[in-house]
C-alpha cells in the first residue's frame, strides 16, 4: 500500500486544526456568561458578578451604551 501523498497529510492537519478551533468557539459560546471585568494600572483586574451592587450598576451603564450604539448595519 502506498503512503499518503504529502499534500494529503498537510490538508488533514489543517482541517484538524480548523475542527478544533470550531469546537473551541462552540464551547465558548455555550459556556460564556455575562460578566463585568475591571482592569487597573499595574495589571490587576477584578470581576464583578451581575448580582453584586457594582456589577448590577455596571450592567445597567453598559446597557445604556449598547442602546446608544444601536444595531450594526449588516
Amino acid at each position, binding site marked *: 500500500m502506498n503512503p499518503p501523498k504529502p499534500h494529503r497529510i498537510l490538508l488533514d492537519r489543517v482541517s484538524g486544526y480548523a475542527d478544533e478551533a470550531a469546537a473551541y468557539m462552540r464551547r465558548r459560546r455555550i459556556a460564556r456568561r455575562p460578566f463585568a471585568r*475591571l482592569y487597573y494600572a499595574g495589571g490587576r483586574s477584578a470581576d464583578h458578578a451581575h448580582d453584586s451592587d457594582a456589577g448590577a450598576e455596571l450592567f445597567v451603564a453598559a446597557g445604556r451604551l*449598547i442602546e*446608544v450604539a444601536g444595531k450594526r448595519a449588516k
Partner: protein
Amino acid sequence: MPDAAATALAPGDAAEAALAFLTEMSPDLRGGAILAGDGSVLAASSAPGRWREDAAKLFEIADAAGGEPVEQVHVATEQGEVFALRHEGMSAVVVADRFALASLLFFDMRATLRDLAHGTVPAPGDGGEGEGG
C-alpha cells in the same frame, strides 16, 4: 516621518478620523466614541451627548467599584459587549458584537488613542500597515 495628511488634521477631525480608522480595523464594532480628559466628546458614531453622559456614568461606577481609577472596563452582556479604555489623557468607549476578541480590541483602542495623542492618525483606508492591526 509622520504622514503630512494625518498631521494636518484639526483635533476634532483627527478624532473623527481615528474613530473611523478604529471602526474599519474592528469588524465587530457597532459604534463608539472618543472623549477628552474633561469628558467632552471628540468624536462619536452617533448622539455625542448620550455617549458623553453614558461613558461618564460607566467610568464613575467602575472607579467607585474598586476605590481607584480603572484603566480598562469590559462588560459582556447578552446584547453586546462594552469596552472602555483610558490612555494618554483621553478615553475611548466602544460597543461590539458578542464574543469580540477583547485583547485585540483593547490593543486597537490603545493604538488609536496613542496615534491621536501623537498626531499620527492614519487616514481611513490605510488599514493593515500600522501596528494597530
